């Protein structure tokens, strides 16, 4: 029996995703955001989290998913690799506990951007939940963007 890890499940549009719970610092309602100039469209803005300024990103925009605006929109505050980032999601569903065996490998398909950030697939109650690699879905790509920008500036 391998160890059990817990995952936070949420919706982007109609699709359901999961994140390792350990990378989630907290979940809050969507606050008023200050726009950030001259950044890609998925940089939604900045928010004040108890005195810390945190950048909020739109995962839906990032992954090309059509938003399903609802009352339940929330910001998941993630902490990884020394960064604190907020991600807007359409709603937060549940926390599930899984062992490694319950995560199925990601199906082989044409390497689209999105499929690379999917670590695996979880089958649950007749539906599929995609397990996201947070750093791939967000930071790595952002870093390349920043490097590109800097290369342009130089």
């Amino acid at each position, binding site marked *: 029996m391998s160890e059990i890890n817990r995952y936070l499940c949420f919706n982007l549009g109609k699709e359901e995703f999961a994140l390792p719970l350990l990378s989630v610092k907290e979940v809050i309602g969507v606050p008023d955001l*200050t726009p950030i*100039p*001259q950044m890609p469209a998925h940089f939604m803005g900045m928010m004040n989290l*108890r*005195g810390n*300024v945190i950048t909020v990103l739109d995962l839906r925009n990032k992954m090309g998913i059509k938003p399903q605006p609802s009352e339940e929109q929330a910001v998941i505050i993630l902490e990884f690799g020394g*960064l604190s980032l907020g991600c807007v999601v359409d709603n937060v569903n549940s926390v599930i506990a899984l062992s490694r065996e319950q995560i199925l490998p990601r199906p082989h398909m044409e390497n689209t951007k999105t499929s690379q950030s999917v670590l695996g697939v979880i089958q649950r109650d007749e539906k599929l939940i995609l397990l996201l690699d947070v750093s791939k879905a967000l930071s790595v790509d952002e870093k390349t963007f920043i490097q590109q920008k800097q290369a342009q500036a130089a």
Partner: protein
Amino acid sequence: MDSFETELKVGFLDEAAQGITDVEQCFLDLETDPSNQDTLNKIFRLAHNLKGSSRAVGFENMGEFTHEFESFILKVKNGELSATPKVINLLLRANDHLREMVEAYRQDLDAVIDSEALMREMVDFDNQAESENSSEVESGLQDSESIEAYSLSELSENKTSDLEKVETNLLVTESVIENASVDVSEIDFANHDLINELKAQLGNLENNLNTAHNEDPAKPIQNSAPEKIHENTKNVVEVEFTEKRAPIEKASNASSSAGTGTGASAGAGASASNVVEQTLRVSLSKVENLINFVGEMVILQSVLKEQLDMIDSPLIKKSISQMGKVSKEIQDLAMGLRMVPIKPTFQKMQRIVRDTAQALNKDVAIILTGEETELDKTVLERINDPLVHLVRNAVDHGVESTELRLQKGKPSKGRVGLSAYHQAGRLMIEINDDGGGLDPEKLKAKAIEKKVIRADARLSDSECYQLIFAPGFSTKDQVTDISGRGVGMDVVRTNITDLGGEIFIESHLNQGTTFKISLPLTLAIIESMVLTFSDQRFVIPLGHVFETLKPTPNMLSYSTDLGDILLLREEPIPIYRLGDFFGIPSKTDVSKMIALVVRSGRRPLALLVDDILGQQQVVIKQLTPELSNIKGVSGTTILGDGKPSFIIEPAELVKRKLSKTKPLIVEAV
């Protein structure tokens, strides 16, 4: 190495670094007053403490070195060596070496450091000056010390089998010390108390050993035993030194050493009157967290204050306004935690002046004033390099050579002054010298030669002084090791402006030059102006805003070459919409906008904004890494309503590529 040992070592390194810094000043003081016993005592205590504790935690290299260092200082202290510049140089080098050692150990706890050369030099110095009587005592004591070191290191290996050996060693130690004490008593026979004390200590030490031995002879001695033994050994050493110093009145001090090892050494220093304020070392991140939360509290407080009219209860009203005062107080206190005195930096400068002057064969005195002036730790760190540069320049370029000074009828000893004080909420640092001063004509000629300015340029004297900040400009014909490569002054100015500071020059030919640096007290809080552009709020540091005005259409003109120009009192200033830099379209007609004139950069600049909301103090927050590539923005802050906003950095703003805009004048018509 187990974690306990590592912890011990790291703790020791922190302590050692602190100690070395504290004592640095003494070496320099020694030069001005070589016979000052207090100063010597302080240095001696440092060496002594380092010796004891470095051996205890297992830095053998350092132990050996500090041992020689200690013996050397003792010579100076006892008057066997006079504190000549040569001796002081050696002491300073030894101090540097200690600092290097601490650094090296920090990198690698098992570092092996070679101090052979310096040790040899100190021993050789010793030999020259050794008198007959003292040499006997010295060798006797040195023997006993090496035996102690031996027994200590043996013990630290925790082998019971060695206990016997140690005991024998102790017996030898005792007899050696007894011999030594005979010598000492010949010099000064009023020392019986001390010697008795010493013997009592040794008895103690032996008892301890026996206890440790008897308690569990089969097993290795646990931590406590070697520690006890170490403490006692330290006491013995302590007594010895007091003995070597041999003044009778110290006897009472020494007897107190029975209880506390280090306490005795402090007492023996006879500077008990110097009561030091107790301090607590706290990590910077803790302080920053505290400041963050205090900032949040102040924001919540202002939200409450805004709601004050809606509250009926006088008690709640009173409490809220009372709480406002308290939280302001707490904010001031929290901010004060980041403030440190400028003293350590100034002391470093003192050393630099000394070394530079010596390298250049000049005689220069440094005068420090306002060392207790406090400023933000970050500002202090970042002002260090510019200060080093300016101070070196003052000695190298400023103060003339001794011959030249005598020719000019000045005192042969040059003077470099360094002072710090607060003025109008800013920190001022002045570096002045009584040297030749800047020659505007010479500067101009040089600038023309270096193609910094055109040959027909007309400059006032103060504009000529500013030329030294031009990149690639150096006035001294000869390039020395010290300064004069012309890479420095422009960097100095850039560093200072980056900090939000300014630098001014005053100079009088043949009387000297004064550099005045004006700095913000803290980088954490700035006085700022809150403004809006297209419903978005921005913050601009108030220091950057020179004036604000509503431009009339006839003040604005446009040319394809230059873009939009604001003609302000016959001065043409380029003017932009703030949004142009951030890709934010303007919603307001130009005639309704307000222009901010910014003069902090190299060239003046005017920014059009929709409205100015007010002035307030804001707490600066660094840009998070994912946003660090946004140009023209120095950070973020949280405004009174709890929403974040960007802080504009005008000097960076102009470096941005402009998004193409329509000329203002077309809209204005």
